[in-house]
């Protein structure tokens, strides 16, 4: 690990100024990505600007039924907040099914959105990797790709976006608020995560030094009936092979409204708009669930090693719809086994 200097910021403006005026500075929140990748020599900032003292830890319900979460609220605190559990069970579940209790106590919501991919070629600081060193090639495409993405890939990068809670937030039309050298901004979450295309090193539209200040989830009554289903190689403390964030409203056996996003299968948190379009107005029967799943996965481009994900994702989508579609209570069903 290279030597670094350290600065503890006490207000947001100073933090933004410190990082935006110095290309070799990074923000430090919980450090569970930043310190890890510093030590692996994947990231090499000269200076860390510690933002943990900034007053961005709030977790509040808005009067109209939405949610406002500060960028430095910890995963564990957000998951435990009664207003989150009641209004958006899928957010609480996505958080509690991620990482471990210790990591969730450390990790912040802002840092979670900006965590880096778990592709082993990216992490080894050695292999050819377009994300780490643009133009060097992608070792995963011909290499070990069992955990990699099947949707949103390009010939330059096929790494899966690793976050769980970002998947739940993507199903919910969340907005990401920032403060940069040019003032405040708000990004729809779907625009916040970029497809790799021919520039996989660009993962989001933020300028250097632009600070995430908070996350705003709009009111969505149907989200009270929601779940996050995560399928993985071991039952806990493991990233998703496939995950489904789902909110569903059923009336008289017909789907009145639905929000769905997928994790573990795509290069960004994947809003399943095709499945949503298919399902609205459809009867809650298994055949429709299976068709919706097939429509969503139709464009999948698997490698020989991760082809199983195409089928697994469809089954997970059907399972999630089955669970919420048969009248199970709000927030029910957050299983983790396939």
């Amino acid at each position, binding site marked *: *690990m*290279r*030597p*670094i*200097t*350290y*600065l*503890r*910021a*006490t207000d947001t403006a*100073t933090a933004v100024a410190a990082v935006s005026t110095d290309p070799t500075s990074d923000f*430090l929140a*919980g*450090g*569970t990505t930043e*310190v*890890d990748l*510093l*030590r*692996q020599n994947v990231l090499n900032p*000269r*200076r*860390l600007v*510690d933002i*943990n*003292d900034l007053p961005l*830890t709030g977790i509040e319900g808005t009067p109209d039924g939405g949610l406002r979460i500060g960028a430095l*609220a*910890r995963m*564990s*605190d957000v998951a435990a907040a009664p207003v989150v559990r009641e209004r958006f069970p899928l957010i609480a579940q996505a958080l509690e099914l991620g*990482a*471990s*209790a*210790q*990591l969730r*106590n*450390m990790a912040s919501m802002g840092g979670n959105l900006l965590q880096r991919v778990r592709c082993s070629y990216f992490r080894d600081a050695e292999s050819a990797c377009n994300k780490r060193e643009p133009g060097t090639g992608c070792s995963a495409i011909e290499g070990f790709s069992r955990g990699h993405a099947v949707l949103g890939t390009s010939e330059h990068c096929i790494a899966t976006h690793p976050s769980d809670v970002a998947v739940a937030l993507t199903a919910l039309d969340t907005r990401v608020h920032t403060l940069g050298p040019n003032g405040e901004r708000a990004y729809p979450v779907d625009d916040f995560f970029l497809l790799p295309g021919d520039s996989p090193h660009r993962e989001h539209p933020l300028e250097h030094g632009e600070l995430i200040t908070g996350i705003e989830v709009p009111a969505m009554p149907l989200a009270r009936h929601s779940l996050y289903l995560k399928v993985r190689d071991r*039952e*806990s*403390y493991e990233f998703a092979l496939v995950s489904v964030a789902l909110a569903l409203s059923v009336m008289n056996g017909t789907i009145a409204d639905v929000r769905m996003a997928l994790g573990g299968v795509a290069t960004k948190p994947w809003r399943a708009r095709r499945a949503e379009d298919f399902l609205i107005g459809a009867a809650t029967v298994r055949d429709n669930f299976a068709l919706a799943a097939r429509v969503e996965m139709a464009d999948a481009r698997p490698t020989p090693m991760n082809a199983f994900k195409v089928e697994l994702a469809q089954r997970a989508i059907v399972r999630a719809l089955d669970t919420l579609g048969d009248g199970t209570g709000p927030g029910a069903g957050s299983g983790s086994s396939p």
Partner: protein
Amino acid sequence: MSARGPALTERGAALEERGPGPVRVRLSVNGTEHTLDIEPRVSLLDALRERLDLTGAKKGCDQGTCGACTVWVDGRRVLACLTLAMTCEGREVTTVEGLAGEGELHEMQRAFIAEDAFQCGFCTPGQIMSAVALIEEGHAGNDAEIKEWMSGNICRCAAYPHIRAAIRAVRDRA
């Protein structure tokens, strides 16, 4: 780490850039103030083990995947390997060495012995720090819940059933 107190550094000193060479850092560990000169890149785990001779917290992976380094910062269980020591200025650090009372082991330590909850013992300090926090957090309701909320502590000897027995014993005594 939501309840973060003000830094021990003076007002205004927060804007001071420190390092990359050794800088003076004040750490409060198990109720004792320590002053040490360390580089900003030094992890809490290395500061505890290499500088303060508190070798209870173990280095298993150094990348957040095993839990052997579990300690508490301001009463919350965290991973010392992914925490920079400097970020703990103004916070209270508790390690397994700080768990026992005057000449008497903590009840979780006694339960680990009584239930034979370890073999090689390498993961044990982390397991115990997690287990005490687990009960405090109220997540030891049943075995499934204990499994899920202890999943951040890997045991290569697979002493899991005995670890759960120790946790149940302490939970049921409380």
